[in-house]
């Protein structure tokens, strides 16, 4: 595979930005709050180094297997990030609310189905099975991720769950990148891997990723609004909420009793 100067430049630039973002996540203590996202950025750094070395010293077959393995791990980590962000938005008190859990499971099932159908429709014009697998795999991952991020937005607005600053900024970046990723991967599927179109589309995609990384670096440096609620108010609200929870538990027990009576 022949790589141009622009390829090397984008490769190096992504590497530097990944490294800066990792340092920011560590330095500003965001890593503990977003461990999977931090893992994804660390993985990207390892992937860039390993990809460069394999491309230089390995065969094209080794590069293919490395690319595919890294790609799979990357998708798994991205799904992990989606879960991490969902957990921040949909369970602000710890456990998942039953209504949110059900709706989200339903949306995941729909997203998997739609992404599978779209991938099945794709027929990339390539001579090699390996290339077809990579293109279809990339397309499936982009479709799934973009659906998940849009589903997150829809569900949180419908349920009336507000977004905290860092979570919103991470999701905006991932959402924009994933939606653009579908266009890029659809173009790859349409044009195949041969010709100048493939390279141009890839450059646009990597450039967009660089923009996202820059946005996340700036976002993670800034602090979220500090809690300002007085301790006395917090204690009073806590006591009131405990009482409400107790009363509701009583109601629920009655409700379950009545449900079982109906069943009998």
């Amino acid at each position, binding site marked *: 595979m022949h790589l141009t100067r622009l390829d090397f430049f984008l490769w190096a630039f992504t590497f530097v930005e990944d490294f800066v973002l990792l340092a920011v996540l560590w330095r500003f203590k965001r890593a503990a709050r977003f461990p999977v996202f931090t893992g994804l950025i660390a993985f990207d750094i390892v992937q860039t180094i390993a990809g460069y070395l394999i491309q230089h010293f390995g065969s094209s077959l080794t590069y293919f297997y490395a690319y595919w393995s890294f790609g799979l791990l990357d998708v798994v980590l991205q799904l992990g990030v989606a879960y991490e962000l969902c957990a921040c938005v949909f369970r*602000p008190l710890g456990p998942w609310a039953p209504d949110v859990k059900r709706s989200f499971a339903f949306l995941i099932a729909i997203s998997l189905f739609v992404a599978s159908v779209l991938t099945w429709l794709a027929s990339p014009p390539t001579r090699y099975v390996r290339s077809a697998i990579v293109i279809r795999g990339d397309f499936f991952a982009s479709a799934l991720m973009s659906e998940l991020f849009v589903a997150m937005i829809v569900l949180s607005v419908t349920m009336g769950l507000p977004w905290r600053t860092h979570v919103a900024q991470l999701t905006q970046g991932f959402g924009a990148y994933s939606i653009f990723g579908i266009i890029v991967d659809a173009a790859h*599927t349409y044009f195949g891997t041969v010709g100048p179109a493939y390279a141009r589309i890839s450059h646009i995609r990597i450039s967009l990723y660089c923009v996202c990384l820059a946005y996340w670096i700036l976002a993670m440096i800034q602090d979220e609004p500090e809690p300002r609620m007085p301790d006395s108010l917090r204690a009073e*609200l806590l006591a009131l909420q405990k009482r409400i929870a107790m009363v509701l538990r009583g109601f629920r027990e009655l409700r379950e009793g009545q449900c079982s009576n109906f069943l009998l």
Partner: protein
Amino acid sequence: MQQLPFVIAVSTFLVVLVTAAVYFLARARRSAGTTWMALMARLRQIDRDNFATVALDLLDERDAESQLDPDSIFEMIGGMDGLDAVEQNCDVLIDMATYVQHWYPEALEIAEELRLNSREIKWHIGRLRGASHTGHMYEQFPVYAQRAVATYYLMTRSLLVLYEGGQVPGFAELQRAL
């Protein structure tokens, strides 16, 4: 031509996805920019004294059974119309707790608690709607309606404590309305 179904499917998919994202983000932005007056205007009028009496009849810690008979409960709540108002007001209460996050970001927890309480109320009201279809409305109404009203009453207390303790503007109006 071989790629045509794929291109059409992907284009449709993209249009749907981007439209949904833009629509819901705009809705979230509109909701974040809601003014206090707009929130108050959404609150439906209920007879707060009657509602408090019905709620406290269930919440007061005593051994005796409910002192209100089913007909009184139905009349004091205002029947299903009153419960419809409660159901709509629940959403407003959640938005009001979210509104407090301008001053106290950690009010998110209260908003989430209210959202869960609101689910309980909607469950009770849903049971009543089901009972009205099967002709069991009369027996079921006092049981589910009183629980829904009691939960709503507790939600309003939480919100008032939050507004009063946090010295959030609009507390006096809210107290009058709830």
